[in-house]
């Protein structure tokens, strides 16, 4: 029975099905909030699922200049990597499937791998838009990755652990002494996450009006559906990670707390997306290295000081 139990955990809850559906739900939430902020009605709740179904039924085209092997398998890897990352995210008090000291590092590594795959997706799709997008994706990766890790490291320092579940349990330790540090790290993490998920103002790698869809330009049909699912899963993982590590609810209210935190984080990301214009890729780099990185370093120093 242990095998069935494990399979259920991996495939249904809190594994594949849960995280993919959470990702699609967050996508709807994001679109709905974005629409309402812009005084529009916005899509009905089932729209993301319909979009995926539609893509699955569409014609699948491999362009002439693309590498057939890479073009076929990269979307699958992309989804595999993001879903694997999700296995280490605890859903509130409901423990992650694979939980071990240092799982935070593994999640970060897997998310980095996702960006590398993004680069390869664009590079091997045989389209100039894909290539420009791929190079931009890597450039942007260099900009946000360090602050993101620094922000999470701050939390790890405060909790004195690299285990996500332990950090989660200790988010309120030292309250209210650590609040300033927490908030500094949270701000950096949210901005870097926006960059990680390629959302406005950091959507230069897939800027629609400039390079069509960047790395995804040539993708159609079920391959695009895989990429979409992978992106949504990445969003769920990113938002889940920030909720677990920074907000007090997941450790207190369990699964419900996790979902509430995820909604809160998504709301903030949506408002951020609605209130600014896109940065040029150079501006993103400058912003990240000149302002966000020192800010996150400051957070780390503060963390070390307050912990004494």
């Amino acid at each position, binding site marked *: 029975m242990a095998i069935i139990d494990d399979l259920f955990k991996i495939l249904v809850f809190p594994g594949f099905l849960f995280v993919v559906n959470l990702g699609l739900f967050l996508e709807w939430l994001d679109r709905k*909030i974005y*629409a*309402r*902020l*812009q*005084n*529009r*009605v*916005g899509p009905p709740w089932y729209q993301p699922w319909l979009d995926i179904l539609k893509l699955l039924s569409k014609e699948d085209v491999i362009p002439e200049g693309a590498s057939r092997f890479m073009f076929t398998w990269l979307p699958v890897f992309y989804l595999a990597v993001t879903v694997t990352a999700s296995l280490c995210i605890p859903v509130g008090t409901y423990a992650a499937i694979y939980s071990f000291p240092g799982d935070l590092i593994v999640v970060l590594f897997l998310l980095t791998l996702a960006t590398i795959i993004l680069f390869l997706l664009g590079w091997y799709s045989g389209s100039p838009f894909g290539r420009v997008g791929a190079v931009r994706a890597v450039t942007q990766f260099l900009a946000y990755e360090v602050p993101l890790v620094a922000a999470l490291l701050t939390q790890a320092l405060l909790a004195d652990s690299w285990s996500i579940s332990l950090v989660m349990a200790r988010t309120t330790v030292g309250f209210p002494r650590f609040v300033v540090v927490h908030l500094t790290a949270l701000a950096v993490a949210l901005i870097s996450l926006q960059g990680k998920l390629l959302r406005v103002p950091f959507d230069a790698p897939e800027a629609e009006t400039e390079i069509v869809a960047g790395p995804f330009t040539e993708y159609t049909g079920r391959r695009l559906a895989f990429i979409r699912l992978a992106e949504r899963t990445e969003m769920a993982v990113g938002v889940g990670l920030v909720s677990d590590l920074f907000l007090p609810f997941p450790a207190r209210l369990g699964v419900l707390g996790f979902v509430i935190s995820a909604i809160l984080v998504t709301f903030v990301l949506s*408002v951020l997306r*609605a*209130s*600014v214009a896109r940065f040029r890729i150079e501006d993103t780099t400058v912003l990240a290295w000149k302002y966000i990185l020192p800010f996150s370093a400051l957070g780390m120093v503060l963390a070390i000081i307050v912990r004494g």
Partner: protein
Amino acid sequence: MLPELIRSLFQKPATVRYPVERVPAPEGLRGKPVCDYSMCIGCRMCSRDCPAAAIEMVDTGERTPRPVFHYDRCAFCGQCADTCPKKAISLTSDYELSAFSKDDLVSLERRRGESAAG
């Protein structure tokens, strides 16, 4: 930017869920043109002036031919209504004219095989 965003969040959306909800068409909208055949004298002026060649004069068995509108070609300019010496043609505010076949977009119903019928 932020105050405006938050205000919009709690405002009624500016868009509507068409076709469940509809924005009423204003009076005087230049929609589907119709002809009151009791006033028509069959002078062909509308057909001559129509910039889109959307008005066909059809012999319906009466003394003079009658204008038939092809709504698929119509540009809804309203020149026919301006031209008509008897003011028999008017533009309604009906603008939802999509159909699956061009044959459904003819003002006078035509029977298959016959040239025209009333």
